[in-house]
């Protein structure tokens, strides 16, 4: 078994990613070996690592879950026989003749696994989620069934919030502009875009977004999730359409596709060969049963995958969609602002024309420190959505101060405020991401994803370590996100670090020390790859330093 093989776009030798098909088969995403890129730079850009789980670790992980399930049954038995008190809520007596609202096997996992470690999620904060934040302390009096706030809080370094460019700020020009918009328009809107909820500020936001992305027009919505779930149906309505969707696509994309009542096919994550195969098959065979030709085919992908830290191989997808006549829907929730020399997202990262992507979608939640989402593209597309989107017709428009936050931050990124502060943020984020990831790799953690991704997933595998990792780092004043089953495959529990331009190198150094320490104690440095020396911090931060000098 080729342990530690790296999946790279350029991997021309078939053995390079042979590990994907290894007996353990735990890795769901194979990165097919694809077209040879001649360009060295591109080769480097598509460098993505998904080191497979070491066999022993996999066995122990399964064993861990097995124990938890056994204990779960045992405790369920104890609860049933009244030895252990039950803390879960029960339904009113009046409802006892009704069909139960939940089935007991549904709640088995929540009751016996999630509850034990629920303190690792939903931690309340009581400050702005910038580079550092105040996390409220909670305690449980009943074995983690209920968590009570103690009233105290802990100042932690924030590696959990999606604050890529550091615009989560409670002072400065963006906040001031938002306050002004609040004065002018109020907080709510109380109407839809098509009725009386079309504010001047919404139009300004859309003009700015279109300009920022370099496309003809854009339309914006109050929620990123709803941008997907309420607009895909307006594009792929009716019978005879086919949606090809990446297996790791976000829930909102899956929901949007499902609401179309069309055929949905799922392809392997970021696997261009699989897409091509499915696309060819679909066109050749036509619709199921009738074999009539498809009316249109839409490929749905994301820019950066937030659980993997992988970056979409956009040039390949564009080549394919052009070759076969499919349409491409690109969700840039995590990549807009965070990738590219000037923050224009994954199109700029690969140097492709944004107009080659039919539907550019993204959210304002992450890089812009606001909320909501946009769809951008041709005038014709946007006109259609203005008229037929579920959201413009039925949902309340975006709050004005939130819209203003996006406008202000976008202008800073574009340098329209007359400074290079936006540029500096972009460079700082890139340097932070690179530095942080490389140091983790150097320490021997198994780190997933692309070198340029600001999302850095570190594999934890074992269920007990999920909680231990999160709690230990919390004790050392670091707030991290850990994710396990069912949000990831069973054996691929992980911690996910989100870098931000607001982080300083000193902060990251402190955090890295803490992580290394916890990693040693929990034996998390699983990597079997030969150790790689990290690029020096000076090199990582050289661009930032030179830019900062200029300022």
């Amino acid at each position, binding site marked *: 078994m080729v342990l530690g093989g790296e999946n790279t776009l350029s991997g021309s030798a078939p053995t390079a990613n042979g590990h994907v098909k290894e007996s353990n088969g735990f890795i769901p995403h194979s990165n097919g070996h694809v077209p040879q890129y001649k360009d060295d730079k591109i080769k480097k850009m598509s460098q993505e690592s998904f080191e497979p789980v070491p066999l022993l670790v996999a066995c122990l992980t399964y064993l861990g879950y097995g124990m938890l399930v056994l204990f779960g049954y045992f405790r369920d038995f104890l609860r049933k026989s009244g030895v252990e008190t039950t803390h879960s809520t029960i339904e*009113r007596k009046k409802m006892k003749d009704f069909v*139960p*609202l939940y*089935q007991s096997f549904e709640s088995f996992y*929540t009751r016996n696994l999630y509850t034990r470690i629920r303190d690792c999620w*939903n931690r*309340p904060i009581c*400050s*702005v*989620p910038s580079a550092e934040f105040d996390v409220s302390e909670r305690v449980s009096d009943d074995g983690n069934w209920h968590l009570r*706030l103690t009233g105290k809080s802990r100042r932690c370094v*924030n590696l*959990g*919030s999606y604050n890529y460019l550091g615009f989560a700020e*409670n*002072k400065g020009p963006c*906040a001031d502009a*938002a*306050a002004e918009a609040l004065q002018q328009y*109020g*907080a709510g*809107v*109380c*109407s839809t*875009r*098509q*009725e009386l*909820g*079309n504010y001047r500020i919404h139009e300004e936001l859309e003009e700015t977004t279109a300009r920022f992305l370099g496309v003809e027009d854009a339309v914006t919505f*109050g929620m*990123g*999730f*709803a941008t997907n779930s309420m607009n895909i*149906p307006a594009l792929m309505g009716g019978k005879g359409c086919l949606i090809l969707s990446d297996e*790791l*696509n*976000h*829930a909102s994309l899956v*929901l949007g596709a499902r609401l179309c009542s069309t055929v949905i096919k799922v392809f392997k994550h970021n696997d261009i060969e699989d897409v091509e195969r499915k696309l060819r098959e679909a066109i*050749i065979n036509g619709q199921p049963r009738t074999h009539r030709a498809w*009316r*249109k085919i839409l490929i749905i992908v994301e820019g950066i995958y937030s659980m993997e830290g992988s970056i979409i191989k956009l040039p390949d997808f564009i080549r394919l969609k052009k070759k076969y*006549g499919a349409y491409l829907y690109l969700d840039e929730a995590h990549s807009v602002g965070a990738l590219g020399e000037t923050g224009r997202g994954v199109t700029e990262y690969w140097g492709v024309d944004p107009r080659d992507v039919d539907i550019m979608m993204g959210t304002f*939640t*992450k890089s812009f*420190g*606001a*909320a909501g989402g946009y769809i951008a593209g041709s005038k014709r597309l946007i*006109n259609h959505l*203005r*008229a*037929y989107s*579920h959201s413009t017709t039925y949902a*309340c428009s975006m*709050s004005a*101060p939130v819209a203003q*936050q996006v406008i202000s931050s976008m202008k800073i990124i574009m340098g329209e405020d007359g400074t290079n502060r936006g540029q500096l943020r972009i460079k700082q984020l890139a340097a932070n991401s690179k530095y942080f990831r490389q140091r983790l790799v150097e320490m021997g953690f198994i780190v997933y994803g692309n070198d340029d991704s600001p999302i850095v997933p570190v594999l934890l595998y074992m269920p007990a370590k999920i909680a231990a990792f999160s709690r230990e780092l919390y004790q050392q004043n670091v*707030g991290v996100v850990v994710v396990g089953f*069912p949000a*990831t495959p069973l054996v691929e529990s992980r911690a996910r670090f989100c870098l931000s331009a607001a982080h300083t190198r000193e902060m990251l150094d402190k955090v890295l020390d803490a992580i290394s320490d916890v990693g040693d104690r929990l034996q998390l440095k699983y990597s079997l790859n030969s150790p790689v020396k990290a690029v020096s911090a000076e090199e990582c931060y050289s661009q930032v330093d030179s830019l900062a000098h200029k300022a």
Partner: protein
Amino acid sequence: MAVEDVMVEPWYMMQMVQAFLQAPVYHIVIEVLLIVWIIGLLFSKSYRIQERVQLTEKEKEDLLAEWKPEPLVPDTPEDHPALHPRVVSGKAGLKVVVDGKECLNLATLNFLGMLGNKRIEKAANTALYKYGVGSCGPRGFYGTVDVHLDLEDKLAKYTRTEEAILYAYGFATIASAIPAYSKRGDIVFCDEGACFAIQKGLLASRSKVVYFKHNDMEDLERLLKEQAKDDKKNPKKAAVTRRFVLVEGIYMNYGDIVPLPKLVELKYKYKVRIFIEESASFGVLGDNGRGVTEHFGVPIEDIDLISANMEMSLASIGGFCCGDSFVIDHQRLSGQGYCFSASLPPMLSVAASEALRIMEEKPGIFEELRTRCQWLHAKLSSIPGLKVCGEPISPIMHLQLAAPSSRAEDTKKLETMCNECMNQGVALTVARYLEQEEHLVPPPSIRVAVNVELTEDDIDHATAVITNVAKMVL
């Protein structure tokens, strides 16, 4: 984040494991034999359902080359109203500046005048300078801010329920809540006049949907009886089929009120759970604005789930569900719009909190609102050529044509009326629907919204303008 298919998988696995443990031994032996037999069949080669057509490479390439997709989207008609929206500059309070002209506002759903309230703005402003704008994460991942917990507490206390859960978007509230409970195989009895968000929630749930006639409890009972008959035939299936009734407190599309007491009676008789979407009735009906339950004096415990958005009476953004913890808490791991989306910007949460506090302090406001609704309803009813649809105490009224002709023509007439009223200083809007996608498109109408700050003079003025315009256009 992982696809929600992954979320669904464990339950099936668990189910399989359980089924396996419970199965008797002979059963397992037979199944194993069956499997061996099937595998044998598969490998016996003689068996082939259908000769597959084998295309040559050339034929395949031709098919690929020949395929021409439809355009991604058709051209939108140049005169579609959405392409020429009215532009609001400034606050949409009782007065609103539309396309540069100041109008009396009868279009935005700002029933309690909370939009434009100084106290709310001040509170939101303070929150903005404490928390920033966005929350930068879903509730699970550091997107829970203390003000969210505070608002959830307040909402639960206000509605006198055990728990409330916040969503960041009004539409997503009920649309996420429904599929959290009702799954494939379950049955939902839904009012055919239900709003679009409910329809989309139902579609996402993949449950069987049975529509009953709008606000017709007899029709509902008839359908429930039919279902009960079917259940008798197949008691095994009936024992695992959850049943729900979905209604609105005040119907957004009709302005009438659900006959709740009768519905609660049916609930216990036929064992169906009641979900109410109360966006237009929360902060409107009842002595304390608690909604349709308070209006009828029905104990709120008899309702399984209440959902409302905070984009009307509370004049903020987002929505909430409330009810027993047993029910509501489930959404914290299963409400898609809750789990997989960034939480509500803290300042908007604070704005809603403050609006709720004002409601608490001024319980008289609801009676005032209803009085205004009744005035306006009476006045509008007297306009020749138009018909008012909705209860007199509903802050949403639909002005329809008394003598309708074709849908397109009627819409055009109403559209013209709105424009003309606007010229004369009264802002109105036609209720917009996606006609192709609605389960049942309501008749074309002007949706009039009542603001508690309307004076008698305002109402007289508005009525005079609408009467004039109606005379001119109709």
